[in-house]
């Protein structure tokens, strides 16, 4: 069987180096297969996070030949056989060991984003009505598997380490899914500007390029959110027109409260998963 040279990062946050391994390659193998073969034969202590091997859990995110990818979805045959395949951990997060990084920062970020808060039910039985057209737009964002490859490639985090100020593309997608939801009444636009610093994004579209779910992150999530920020903070003419000709967006719904949202409110998934149909607060 042909052999390919793998150059894999070995080490922890205190230091490390690339080590070379020859791996026997079979037909249809992906990079994660090679890593597993290495663990079984040459490097039993090689740390690697994985789960589904089907590109749906996002666990095996790493950088292969310098590009953030899911190892389970990266075919070895895509690379020239005479050159080493370089595998290293994601650069944007603290390293734990070898190919495993600590992505818990992302979960902290998510907690800072105001959750889904629906308008009062449309029907007496406590359900809502939505049109499929309104839901189609946010359905794309719900494909996200939280592999955090987009966070890894974003240069604001990767090169400028703005983790304390900037939430990154994954959470702009999350915020867009909430903001554009036809039932949601929360307003996150001020937070996008002041707390999440969406202005740091300079639209290089790297997040879109690495997304394994082909979510059009920049065009469909980040730029629309930037435009909503412009509506709110940088367009005096539009504000004037809105002031004169139409009531404000939030006037038809109860004023947002600063407290955590009621336990009885449906989650984003329960509401949007049942489009064109009544949505019950108690639906799973």
């Amino acid at each position, binding site marked *: 069987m042909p052999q390919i040279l793998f150059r894999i990062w070995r080490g922890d*946050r205190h230091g490390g180096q690339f080590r070379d391994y020859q791996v026997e390659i079979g037909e249809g193998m992906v990079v994660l297969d090679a890593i597993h073969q290495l663990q079984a034969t040459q490097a039993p202590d090689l740390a690697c996070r994985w789960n589904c091997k089907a590109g749906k859990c996002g666990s095996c995110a790493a*950088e292969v*030949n*310098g*590009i*953030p990818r899911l190892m389970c979805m990266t075919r070895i045959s895509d*690379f020239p056989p005479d050159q080493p395949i*370089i595998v*290293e951990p994601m*650069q944007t*997060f*603290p*390293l734990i060991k070898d190919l495993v990084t*600590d992505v*818990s*920062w992302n*979960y*902290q970020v998510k907690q800072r984003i105001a959750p889904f808060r629906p308008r009062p039910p449309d029907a007496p039985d406590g359900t809502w009505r939505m*049109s499929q*057209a*309104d839901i189609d737009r946010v359905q794309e964002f719900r494909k996200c598997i939280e592999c955090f490859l987009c966070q890894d*490639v974003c*240069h*604001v985090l*990767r*090169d*400028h*380490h*703005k*983790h*304390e100020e900037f939430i990154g593309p994954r959470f702009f997608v999350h915020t867009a899914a909430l903001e*554009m*939801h*036809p039932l*949601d009444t929360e307003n996150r636009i001020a937070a996008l500007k002041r707390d999440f*610093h969406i*202005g*740091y*994004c*300079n*639209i*290089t*579209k*790297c997040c879109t*390029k*690495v997304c394994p779910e082909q979510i059009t992150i*920049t*065009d469909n999530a980040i*730029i*629309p959110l*930037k*435009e*909503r*920020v*412009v*509506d709110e*903070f*940088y*367009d005096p*003419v539009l504000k004037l027109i809105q002031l004169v000709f139409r009531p404000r967006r939030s006037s038809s719904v109860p004023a947002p409260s600063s407290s955590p949202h009621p336990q009885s409110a449906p989650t984003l998934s329960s509401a949007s998963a049942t489009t064109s149909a009544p949505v019950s607060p108690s639906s799973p």
Partner: protein
Amino acid sequence: MASFPLPLQPARSFGQTHRQDRWWLQPLSVLVGLTLFVVYATWAALQGEYYTYGPYLSPFYSPELWGRSEHAWWGPVPSWWPAWLPYSPAILILWAPAGFRLTCYYYRGAYYKAFWADPPNCAVGEPRHGYIGENGWPLRIMNIHRYFLYLAILFIFILAYDALKAYRFADGFGIGVGSLVLTVNVILLAGYTFGCHSLRHLVGGRRDNLRTARWCSGLYRGCSALNRRHMLWAWISLFSVMFADLYVRLCAMGIWKDWRLL
């Protein structure tokens, strides 16, 4: 849970990457393409002559507010124009389409990479450690894009009128190669302008309930369809407008002959 400051790996130095592909090719192509256009457009705009040929008017000079040609809206060069300052009708109007492209979301991403290496390309090390992005001045000014959009839409209608006039020759209706060049040019410019991210937002994207306004829904779908190929529209319209000017200019200079098809 992570605690700040995060024990992150140090940022890579300028150009450092493990990418094996020719990552430099894309920003280099953008740099060459945009530089070529800016140099040509500046040169052409400052010429002040050879911008009309028969019914054709170069898109760089349209609308010709004041000027020597029959296309001028308000007559010859105004008396208040300083005598020491060379006059060209293009410099009065080109700031609008230039501003539209300068603040365009696609071009911003492209020229931040190509001209500022911020970043040079995805997952490639940067030359600077400090970063403000569009979060502060001066780049916060990019939020003005939608105002340039309004002007760009106005220009589309003006250029469409010019394209229609390009079929009205001295001897009546006719079709020349120049007529087709100007028509294709305005179609490509419209494809770029009407696929603008800001327009997509303004016509419907800003609403959470599109079903309540069906015309918004239709416009939003139309804009979105064009927006999916916004980069392509941006480049082909950039070169078409340059070619349209070049075509009119070379015909006016007598270097090219404008073929009458009808």
